[in-house]
């Protein structure tokens, strides 16, 4: 396939300036480019040309940094170039503008954080986006589940593909390639004979390194040889000192253990600090998608202490490659888990080894790439199936209307199918009624559910009935042909009977199978819808939304470009709509049930 991968407006590809998404793309490119014709569209950078082709991968770069400017460049590029599939990274807001200029391409999305949250994308637009994309891959179950909670209809399209790490670059400190580097770093920073605890990440409240710093006085009483290394670029910053950085610095200054702060470390040298360390601590306080440091830590053969936030615990096998802090606001909980590891040297070693083993077996880039390739194939297949099915329906209709000669048989078929149809209808109507009864309680999602219920169930029913009709027709035709051959004397009575029995058995089996499938599908679909509309405990939901929006703000300040006002107004309008509706609901329910029956008789 001819595939376009669209990066975000933040950082360039290759990841000369780092970035999780950029690292991800660079990690999978060598693998996926073997199978497809890949173009990578990203932002321009003074160190990179506007266009180039390296190892068969085309790179196109347009101005970025600000979303609106980037979007314009992206749209202009897509407008004048054709692709079979367009894969967009973490920018659902690019989907509709791209769909406008690429009506035929399949669109898939990679989600790396919470860009589907209502503060980031207007819910109306989000729904349209979810309708347009054929698949969504997420970096953790957590990221996928947040989208599911907001937009249940997206659920079948979502799949987790955990990220990867270059296990040749991130190596344990005792690996022959790393021993020298480890020793040099430790010597240069006064870390010889120390047990080095490493933190690498942004210096922000969300990332929470202050909790680790506050855990150290307690730990240092128990372990005499501790040292802390903080890899974070803003430590020495003069201009961009936030209150938080100032706070952390003030605390670190008073620590009873040596603290090494590295300042900015180039992305291609960061593995050296992992090799120099003995234990990694991830202190994230926010619902984090799943920080890359987990993979890097594992590859570097370090035990990890992380927090029960967001997707982070998804890659931890407790007591095998690390421990999880359940209550990360409390520094003493870090002290407890760290102490658990540090006081058992053999556990510590085993955890490091297990981590390395996991990184090598599960978290390499080729695995990430092959999972993504699967998803792309699936997107292609889904499209194909869809068009095939459309053809089938068309064929049946055409046949039954135009072929005068088979009219009798068609009628015949219809007569035979009447009971099946009735049975299915009953099942359908019952499902719709159950749904509507439940929907009365689920005001918020009523509109959505009704929409899905009607569309989804009807579509499934129709498809199945069409298929059934088609198969019945096929069978009848075969029998007619068989009769003709009997009449012409080509075959004898015995053979005819045998053949006819076979065809009928086949038909019966086929019919049973289709009917069963239809029941299953309709039941399943209505169950899914029911699950989606079952009202959430609202306060909890609200609280979660608030929590998430907090995180969002600190982490992605630059992106808060969304029109809040629209959301709010939309909510108000919706509430008003809902109020009006409840009065006429009963009447509508009746109507709805009728609509299908009538249309199915056509």
């Amino acid at each position, binding site marked *: 396939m001819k595939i376009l991968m669209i990066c975000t407006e933040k950082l360039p590809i290759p990841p000369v300036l780092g970035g999780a998404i950029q690292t991800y793309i660079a990690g999978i490119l060598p693998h996926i480019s073997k199978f497809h014709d890949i173009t990578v569209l990203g932002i321009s950078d003074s160190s990179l040309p506007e266009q180039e082709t390296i190892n068969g991968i085309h790179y196109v770069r347009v101005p970025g940094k600000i979303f609106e400017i980037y979007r314009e460049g992206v749209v202009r590029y897509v407008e004048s170039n054709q692709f079979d599939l367009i894969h967009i990274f973490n920018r659902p807001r690019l989907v509709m503008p791209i769909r406008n200029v690429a009506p035929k391409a399949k669109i898939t999305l990679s989600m790396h954080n919470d860009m589907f949250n209502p503060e980031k994308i207007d819910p109306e637009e989000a729904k349209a986006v979810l309708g347009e994309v054929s698949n969504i891959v997420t970096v953790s179950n957590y990221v996928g589940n947040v989208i599911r909670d907001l937009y249940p209809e997206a659920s079948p399209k979502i799949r987790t593909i955990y990220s990867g790490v270059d296990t040749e670059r991130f190596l344990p400190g005792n690996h022959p390639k790393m021993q020298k580097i480890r020793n040099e770093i430790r010597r240069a920073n006064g870390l010889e004979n120390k047990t080095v605890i490493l933190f690498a990440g942004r210096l922000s409240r969300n990332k929470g390194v*202050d909790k680790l710093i506050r855990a150290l006085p307690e730990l240092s009483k128990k372990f005499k040889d501790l040292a802390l290394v903080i890899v974070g670029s803003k430590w020495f910053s003069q201009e961009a000192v936030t*209150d938080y950085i100032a706070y952390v610095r003030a*605390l670190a200054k*008073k620590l009873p253990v040596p603290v090494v702060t590295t300042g900015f470390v180039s992305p291609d040298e960061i593995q050296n600090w992992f090799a120099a360390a003995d234990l990694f601590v991830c202190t994230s306080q926010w619902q984090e998608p799943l920080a890359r440091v987990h993979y890097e830590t594992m590859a570097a053969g370090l035990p990890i202490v992380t927090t029960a936030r967001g997707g982070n615990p998804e890659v931890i096998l407790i007591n095998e490659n690390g421990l999880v802090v359940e209550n990360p606001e409390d520094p003493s909980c870090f002290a407890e888990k760290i102490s658990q590891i540090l006081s058992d040297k053999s556990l510590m070693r085993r955890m490091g080894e297990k981590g390395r083993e996991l990184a090598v077996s599960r978290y390499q880039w080729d695995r990430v790439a092959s999972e993504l390739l699967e998803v792309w194939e699936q997107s292609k297949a889904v499209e194909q199936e869809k068009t095939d099915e459309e053809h089938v329906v068309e064929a049946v209709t055409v046949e039954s209307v135009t072929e005068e000669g088979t009219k009798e048989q068609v009628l015949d078929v219809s007569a035979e199918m009447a009971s099946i149809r009735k049975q299915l209808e009953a099942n359908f109507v019952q499902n719709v009624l159950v749904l509507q009864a439940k929907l009365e309680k689920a005001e918020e999602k009523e509109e959505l559910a009704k929409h899905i219920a009607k569309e989804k169930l009807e579509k499934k029913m129709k498809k199945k009935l069409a298929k059934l009709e088609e198969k019945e027709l096929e069978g009848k035709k075969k029998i007619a042909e068989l009769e003709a051959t009997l009449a012409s004397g080509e075959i004898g009575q015995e053979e005819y009977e045998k053949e006819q029995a076979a065809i009928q058995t086949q038909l019966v089996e086929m019919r049973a199978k289709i009917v069963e499938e239809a029941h299953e599908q309709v039941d399943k679909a209505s169950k899914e819808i029911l699950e989606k509309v079952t009202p959430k405990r609202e306060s909890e939901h609200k609280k979660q939304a608030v929590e998430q929006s907090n995180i969002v703000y600190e982490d992605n300040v630059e992106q808060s470009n969304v029109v809040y*006002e629209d959301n709010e107004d939309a*909510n108000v309008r919706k509430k008003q709509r809902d109020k009006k509706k409840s009065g006429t609901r009963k009447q509508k329910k009746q109507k709805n049930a009728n609509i299908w029956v009538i249309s199915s008789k056509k």
Partner: protein
Amino acid sequence: MEKIVIEPWIVDELTHEFFVPDYIEQLAEEVLKSYDLSVRSIQVVTTKPDKGGAIWKLETNSGPKSLKLLHRRPTRSLFSLGAQEYLVDVQKARVPPIIKTKDGSNYVEAGGKLWFVAEWIEPLAPVTKDLEGAKQLCYALGEFHRLSKGYIPPEQAEIASRLRKWPKSYEKVITKMDWFRSIAKAYEETAASSHLLNVVDIFEEQAKRSLERINQSSYFELIKQGNAYWGLVHQDYGWSNGQMGENGMWIIDLDGVAFDLPIRDLRKLISGTMADLYRWDVEWVREMIKAYHEANPISASLYEVLMIDLSLPTEFYKNIKEVVYEPELFLNEPTTTQLIQTIVETDQSKWPVLEEIENDWKGVE
């Protein structure tokens, strides 16, 4: 010109008060070429070196003007420029009109930032620092809020809205109380450390209580009305940004405006004024709220939120938060102990006042 990116600059003993780096001065000259103005003199009047912003006063053939280099992100600046234009053109508010460029634009982009020219309003005089002055300020603020309703930002602008962020900002206050405590503990040898430790629990409790109250208040109902309904807060309103001109009160420096519940400006003005008085005065508070109410009526539920916001220990928070920067200096400064003392005393006079006015709005629609 395109390649230059304006950045914050360092000021020290060697730089004079209104120092602006040469390349920015040159950009300013470039920017002025976009205007149909003949500039007789140009003079720096304010700088924000840590952010990279500045204001110049221009004497031109068509009177005095101001030239502003906005330090915020261009998309954010578009929001405030749009607001200023809306207030002047649509609502005829007394805020300085923006001068258009030769191409009819509101602003010029240079050095990765937005610049604009506006009328320099003269003469302007601060209102008196007494209750009368405070009431004038409050009335003008209410008027400003009322007129800012209905503002729809330009399409390219990012939406600056604090409307939904109240609980989050309360939480931030609580978080930082914990920081203050940790720092005071880590720097226990300093003079003010024990004083800070003695009171931080009280203020933390107050903040927690405010958060609980806001979470149970009509706040969530109120914000459903949306940004345009509530209009804009100034965010930096007080005796210098609200001044008396020839035909009434003018409001200047609109660069920080954002959508919010309007009473946030009023709360800041009240608690700041009480801090200046060193005590809470029930008459002042009542009169200030009343003056505001006359220009922009406060509903009972909005009043409830105002009461909650007044209960937040903002003065303590505001004055102590710099402790994280240089704890040793701050906590050893002799004035710090005094400062804490004053804040605590002023705070003690706050609660009877809040209690007394708690039910003032009972029955108000």
